[in-house]
């Protein structure tokens, strides 16, 4: 198990590719968007509205994630409604709820949405603190649910190990730390000393753990020389920057996000941090790509939550992305982030499952029919293929990251289109049936099955 391999072979076994590798879409694969000629639904479809409860952050600092998530779903709902609604009859009606109310209040609101508002479907959720609390309640209420994010591995590892009604669309959290570390190890194999700055809550801890376990395998001679744990919402990083610089690392691993990250990089620039070390971020360009300035240094690993950046797949190569970005930009006058893509894709994933179930049985399908169509469903989404694994109801798509670069087309830096890094998700997440592990199944799977690179 712990056989030694050289690093190049290691990367080959991970299937890491740099550049723009894409396969073409299969003919019968479901795609996002509303086709011009739709199949006529079978049987009688009621024309009552289809109520979706969408809970996400509309206030507080995490609104940078929540608002695009809602807008993604809103865009999909508007497209579907313009074509007549679900199965041509049922118009989607969106009910908003603010996730910022706190976990206990969110659980109450979820019950209220189901019992008083009689929602047909629940969607949204940004925070990893909320999915493990809401997941079991949605199961208990028998409420069909697709979480867009709240991507903690804990949800399907521990909180709801055998989900029936709940699904999740964006990649699992562990993929962030793993992707960042694989990208850093392949790009800067001479790294010996690593400094860390992560927000002090479950996401930052998860990124730290998974970055560490991959480094233990790929760069076994590298060691951690500094750790900084700023509180989420910190915008003064002077002390953390000084601490990291004074430990003289080769590489900084950082999972600070949103407004915190914008403040971080601007301060780090003036402290000369980027001149003194390489930087690998899990999520720098994932949250609000347009909030990053042209002064952002080029050539750092600018993670996108291992999920999606609106410039990839680029050009005309993947029309589902091109169309989505154009429509989203036209509708909201901003570019979509991974949450917007998740909200959009979740809505079409649902629509597709409803149509498939209708084709089999006719009429409006019951939830169990929709669930069995969602299980194992695959779809060509803006980010690429998304696959819902039947055993754990988790969405999987190939992980992506890249290097920051300024180009003339955008007033903010994007991922260098020449050097995108994609990793097949199968190679960096625990397979079906792998025993639940601590801190995550993916962590123990990497620890036990990945070889160690020669130092």
């Amino acid at each position, binding site marked *: 198990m712990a056989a030694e391999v050289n690093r190049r072979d290691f990367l080959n076994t991970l299937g890491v590719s740099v550049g723009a590798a894409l396969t073409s879409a299969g003919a019968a694969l479901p795609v996002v968007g509303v086709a011009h000629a739709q199949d006529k639904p079978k049987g009688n479809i009621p024309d009552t509205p289809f109520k979706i409860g969408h809970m996400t952050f509309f206030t507080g600092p995490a609104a940078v994630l929540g608002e695009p998530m809602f807008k993604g779903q809103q865009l999909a709902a508007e497209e579907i409604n313009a074509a007549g609604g679900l199965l041509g009859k049922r118009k989607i009606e969106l009910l908003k709820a603010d996730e910022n109310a706190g976990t206990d209040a969110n659980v109450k609101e979820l019950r209220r949405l189901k019992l008083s508002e009689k929602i047909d479907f629940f969607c949204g959720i940004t925070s990893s603190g909320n999915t493990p609390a809401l997941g079991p309640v949605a199961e208990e209420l028998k409420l069909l649910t697709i979480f867009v994010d709240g991507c903690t591995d804990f949800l399907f590892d521990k909180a709801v190990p055998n989900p029936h009604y709940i699904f999740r669309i964006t990649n699992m959290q562990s993929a962030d730390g793993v992707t960042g570390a694989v990208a850093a190890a392949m790009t800067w194999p001479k790294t010996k000393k690593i400094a860390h700055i992560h927000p002090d809550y479950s996401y930052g801890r998860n990124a730290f753990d998974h970055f560490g376990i991959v480094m233990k395998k790929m760069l076994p001679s590298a060691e951690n020389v500094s750790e900084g744990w700023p*509180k989420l919402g910190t*915008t003064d990083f002077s002390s953390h920057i*000084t601490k990291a610089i004074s430990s003289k690392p080769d590489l900084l691993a950082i999972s600070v996000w949103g407004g915190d990250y*914008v*403040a971080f990089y*601007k301060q780090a620039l003036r402290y000369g941090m980027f001149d003194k070390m390489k930087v690998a971020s899990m999520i720098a360009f994932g949250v609000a790509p347009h909030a990053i300035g042209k002064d952002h240094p080029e050539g750092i690993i600018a993670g996108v939550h291992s999920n999606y950046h609106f410039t990839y797949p680029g050009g005309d190569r993947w029309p589902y992305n091109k169309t989505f970005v154009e429509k989203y930009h036209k509708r909201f006058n901003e570019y979509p982030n991974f949450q917007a893509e998740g909200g959009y894709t979740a809505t079409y994933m649902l629509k597709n499952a409803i149509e498939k179930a209708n084709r089999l049985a006719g009429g409006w399908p019951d939830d169990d029919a929709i669930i069995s169509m969602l299980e194992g469903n695959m779809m060509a989404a803006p980010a690429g293929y998304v696959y819902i694994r039947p055993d754990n109801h988790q969405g999987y798509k190939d992980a992506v990251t890249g290097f920051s670069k300024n180009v003339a087309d955008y007033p903010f830096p994007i991922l260098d289109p020449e050097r995108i890094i994609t990793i097949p998700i199968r190679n960096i997440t625990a397979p079906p049936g792998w025993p639940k592990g601590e801190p995550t199944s993916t962590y123990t799977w990497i620890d036990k099955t990945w070889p160690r690179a020669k130092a």
Partner: protein
Amino acid sequence: MDFFFIHLLNALLSAATLFLIAGGLSLIYGVMRIVNLAHGNLYAFGAYVTAWTLGRALAGAPTPLLYLALPAGAVGAALLGAVLEPTLLRPFYKRAEEYQLLVTFGLLMILGDVMHFVWGPYPLSASALWENSGSVSIAGNPYPNYNLVVIAIGGIAAAFLWFFVYKTRFGVVLRATSQNMRMASALGVDVNRMYVQAFTLGCFMAGLGGAIIVPSQSAVLDMGVDALVLSFIVVVIGGLGSLEGALVGALIVGVVREAGIAWFPEIELAVLYLMAAAVLLVRPAGLFGRAT
């Protein structure tokens, strides 16, 4: 040791902003006996106004003009304070303290939503001053010049306030009202006017605190709540109602926070609360507080 001075400057940097916020909070409490929970979002309001002024209205303007416009947030917060005190707070002075807490807490929430509504969820940055100011080398390590400006502004504000409160006629009346409002009123002080002036000055300080951090940190939602919590630690240590206490408290919190991050990352957050708890046990009114 080559980073000693940088650590020291970092500590002074956070102390400078904290003093402005906590000083305003303390001043308002000292004069009006109101714990203004909305104070955090007046600080955030100052940040948003400056971020909007420098980043949108004056985008591309030359550096000296940007420096001149930097206090826009302080002026904005002061104006807001001058409107809020007579309209929202004054009707509650005769009621029990719980009402004031409820009103100022409600105001904290409302201001947060107003800023979200006006400026949206994304961080609003105006970093031209920060970017154009460059860095100075301290023992071979770059240190941002703009941070030195912030430290200087904090120091000047402290000196100015001291002068204002202890050397001017306005200061005498302010202190008299603070010590005995009824007596001051009986002697002919227009208490309503004094209250609105003190509240406006307190808001000006909070807004200035928000304004000066914008070039390096951006304005973000919820910055006000975090700042409010930290400034409560400062006034608990220093003593609520005392400007000297706010200054010493801010310096202590700045130094301990810096040392905590550098050497005790595990208890970085806890150490401030532990210190506040220790002060409460030994001197419940704070280091400079008057027991009433």
